[in-house]
């Protein structure tokens, strides 16, 4: 077993052990923090497919995080008010069912990514970064001026949505849902990376012309990867909104795109558990350093500089070494 596989196991068990300890010690706040780690890690796992496997520096993943959030907010608010979402041509009512909300979040994010990706992937480099950012900002300003769903104030949901057989208001049970989804996403990503599609994506990142010469269209491979990446980030957005029972235009903000990217870089770009390690470190710093100074992000910036300059494989690369990377 490689050092990275052992480290991945330690990270996975650590993320499970902390909330279990908090549950036993009756520390619900710590469980909520661990749930945030799992959700942000899920968003990072999504971004890591585009960024790590595909080399697509998307600075607009907040768009999908926000779409997932609003999918939850809109469906739950209609269920809350007993007003149908749409009456004609078909009756569509709101729902409190988490699986249905997740499905809508994933489909909506994927469709948005199909449109955004189809346009932005015709460019590369700084233009790709700017176009993805521009789409996210467009959605941000759209939701601000969307009074039906709270406009700038956002939407509050009074009760957490439901999952069959579980009490989602119990922090440890909600954590279990998020943790299980994170593990499923990690398993899926690991399989994807080793599949012919994942290899073609990695090859396209290394040299697009060479990939074309073996009969693969890099544009299509990248677009599919971008859509999958967005779907996972959208799912994370729905869970994040459910955690807070609140959704607002801030979920579309450029700082959210930045935060997801920062936690991927901190943990290790293209490393399977990089986003998990990065999210854990991010939340830890936010709470430990945030308690000392309100300018804690200065220290985060210094840490990020250190990682970029001296530890290109991020936290996972620093501990597990660089041999397993495909970057």
């Amino acid at each position, binding site marked *: 077993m490689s050092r990275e596989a052992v480290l991945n196991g330690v990270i996975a068990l650590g993320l499970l052990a902390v909330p279990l300890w908090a549950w036993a010690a009756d520390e619900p706040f710590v469980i909520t923090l661990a749930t945030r780690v799992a959700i942000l890690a899920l968003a990072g796992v999504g971004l890591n497919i585009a960024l790590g496997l595909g080399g697509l520096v998307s600075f607009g993943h907040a768009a999908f995080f926000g779409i997932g959030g609003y999918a939850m907010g809109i469906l739950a608010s209609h269920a809350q008010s007993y007003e149908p979402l749409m009456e004609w041509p078909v009756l569509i009512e709101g729902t409190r069912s988490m699986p249905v909300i997740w499905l809508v979040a994933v489909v909506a994010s994927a469709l948005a990514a199909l449109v955004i990706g189809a346009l932005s992937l015709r460019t590369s480099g700084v233009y790709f970064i700017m176009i993805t950012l521009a789409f996210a900002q467009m959605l941000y300003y759209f939701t601000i001026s969307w009074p039906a769903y709270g406009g700038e104030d956002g939407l509050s949901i009074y009760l957490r949505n439901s999952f069959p057989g579980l009490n989602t208001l119990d922090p440890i049970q909600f954590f279990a849902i998020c943790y299980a989804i994170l593990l499923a996403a990690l398993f899926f990503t690991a399989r994807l990376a080793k599949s012919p599609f994942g290899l073609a994506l990695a*090859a396209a990142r290394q*040299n697009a012309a060479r990939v074309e*010469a073996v009969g693969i269209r890099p544009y299509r491979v990248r677009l599919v990867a971008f859509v999958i990446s967005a779907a996972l980030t959208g799912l994370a957005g729905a869970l994040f909104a459910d955690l807070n029972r609140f959704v607002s235009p801030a979920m579309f903000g450029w700082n959210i795109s930045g935060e997801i990217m920062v936690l991927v870089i901190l943990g290790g770009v293209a490393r399977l558990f990089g986003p998990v390690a990065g999210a854990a470190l991010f939340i830890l710093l936010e709470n430990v350093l945030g308690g000392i100074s309100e300018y804690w992000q200065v220290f985060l910036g210094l840490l990020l500089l250190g990682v970029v300059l001296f530890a290109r494989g991020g936290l996972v690369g620093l501990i597990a070494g660089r041999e397993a990377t495909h970057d």
Partner: protein
Amino acid sequence: MSLLELSAVTAFYGPSQALFGVDLAVEEGEVVALMGRNGMGKTTTIRAICRLLPIREGSIRLDGRDIRALPSFRVARMGVGLVPEGRRCFPNLTVEENLLAAARPGEWDMPRVMRLFPALAPRRGQMAASLSGGEQQMLAIGRALMTNPRLLLLDEATEGLAPVVRQEIWAAISRLKSETGLGIVVVDKSLRELRTVADRGVILARGRTVWEGGFDRLDEDLTSRYLGV
């Protein structure tokens, strides 16, 4: 109908004309040596066939179908396998991953490539960047074969390799010729090996086809004039 047919092909790099009228035909199961001094248009012709370089005039037909307007990935899917000059594997994928990334359904699969190049078998899990030049060349050929081509283009496949490795590559090309129905275009400077392996030769000079025929007709005058040998 030839497998590949180039007729009066002209091509440019920006404002500079590189091909002035290339004619070339390759039949199924035939090995054609594309020869000429440096800068005469051999690699440019290969790039034009793969649609990595647009052509200005003339036609390129694969199985009778004009492929001028097709993107390079479509040409590859139609059965054109390229082994580019300078090897050019995917350096940060393993040997196995390099082969799987290119795999298309057909007779060529991983075990068959490993049988053709046994030296690759123990290196399956090794990053391509860490292979020797000869192993990288074998991998580049193997990757092209994994696309299950009908036409294989080998651009300077033995350049810069140790003599013993060059012999392995030539032996592999001979096996491809005898065991498959592949059409093969070989660009190389080793006239001695080309005479052994190729069925015919085509000489390019200043971007034009100036001679084509069997090696029994390739006399000293031609070789000294066009190949500098």
